């Protein structure tokens, strides 16, 4: 009998805690209806060497950069607070309008508050020869992931 009170309160607390967890879990749905993260970005011949291509930025928030050896895809989301930077061709840098972070064409941050470089997306050739960019796989420089074969499309 001496234990009835502690047991009762323990059970009550456990029930409260578990319903709290269940309520929190309610905030995270199992299925998300968000736009597709992968898209086909045309044939490699459509890009000029040495240029940062902005044609997919409005639709998919991705820049495709063509270098002599191949392609990489930069995700146009500032690593500071998620604004989308602009490519300033004259100054050869990405500049974020929210807090002034600046990035080189490679994606490396060099000014402003951004704590780390821009992220790169998976970029491969699809079966039909088009470039396939998949934003659901991201490569971060500071984790050494840019050397991953899918972070850079060799031509």
């Amino acid at each position, binding site marked *: 009998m001496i234990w009835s009170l502690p047991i009762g309160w323990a059970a009550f607390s456990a029930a409260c805690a578990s319903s709290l967890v269940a309520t929190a879990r309610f905030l995270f749905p199992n299925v998300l209806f968000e736009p597709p993260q992968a898209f086909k970005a045309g044939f490699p011949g459509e890009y000029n060497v040495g240029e940062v291509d902005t044609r997919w930025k409005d639709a*998919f928030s991705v820049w495709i950069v063509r270098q002599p050896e191949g392609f990489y895809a930069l995700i146009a989301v500032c690593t500071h607070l998620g*604004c989308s930077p*602009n490519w300033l061709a004259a100054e050869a840098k990405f500049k974020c*309008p*929210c807090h002034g972070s600046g990035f080189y064409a490679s994606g490396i941050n060099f*000014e402003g508050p951004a704590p*780390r470089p821009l992220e790169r997306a998976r970029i491969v050739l699809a079966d039909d020869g088009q470039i396939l960019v998949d934003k659901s796989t991201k490569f971060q420089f500071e984790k050494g992931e840019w050397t991953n074969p899918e972070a850079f499309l060799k031509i």
Partner: protein
Amino acid sequence: MVDALKGAINFLTAPEIFITLASVLFFLSMRYKAFWAPKVALALGILGAIFLAVSMLDHNFALIVKKPDNVPIVAMLFLVGFFVWLSMHQAHQNDERIARGEPPNEASNGENEKTWVWPDLVYTELLCMIIGMIVLVVWGLAFHAPIEEAANPARTPNPSKAPWYFLGLQEMLVYYDPWLAGVVFPSLIIVGLMAIPYIDMNPKGNGYYTFKERKVEITIFMFGFLIQWVLLVILGTFLRGPNWNFFGPYEYWDLHKLLALNNVNLSEYVWVKALGVGLPKNMFVREIPGILATLVYVVVLPGLLARTWLKKYFEKLGPWRYAVFVMLLLLQIALPIKMMLRWLFDLKYIVALPEIFFNI
């Protein structure tokens, strides 16, 4: 002549000069009560109105001030100015009365007595409500609520600003990483405000305006309110332009204004520039200077202050209250310190551990 004046004002509003000047002015006004004489206040108010009116002739200035969302900020500045004066003026009046041995205004001439809520209070309230409603309707007729282009998740407007009352936070985000400036500091502001009644052990000044009896409390609070909140709102609204660069109030918002913002971490200053060796491989060894500096600031400094400058408070508040008080105070000052370090030395991070998302 006009251009020279504009140039001078543009120069003075460079952030490091602007904030320094404003802080100096603030502490002077706390020190000398002549600042709060009605004549001085009236003169300052009129001067402010003239400055605003004349400046509206400038195209670049008018462009920013006339934005519908910025109108409340201008109104707010005058209101805050007026009410700060009103409170300080009454405080100094009461201080003089108390010095003469009289009770404060709020306790003399029968003010201690009670009066009827109906009609005395309810009619005052009704009048305030009516005036408030009239102001709102006129305001609503005069200015359309802003609506911009439809949302486009891929195109960030330049500059992109938070609602005006959060511009202080947005400014803070330039100097500290989001986990500090966006989460820890705002929480501490709330906790700090809530802690005030439990830290402030001064029994005087309850229920009447006074300055002399609570100099330190009022100075700390007003510094936070006026310099670290209102001034940062001004900075964010009127001086931050495209690419989040600083612009003088009369300066054209040039999208391509080039400013070198090449910020350097403390570790680089110490290892590369001072010692002339490369950055150590191990991230914790690399950041030892910054970690030490931070530990000195939050651990050693409170103890040191308890023996020196703040000895009086340590004895009065006891160890626990003192610890909370001094931590909040140090963290409050951490913002201006980092801002100055950034502006004067281009310092980026004191501790930079991007590998584990831990930067200070």
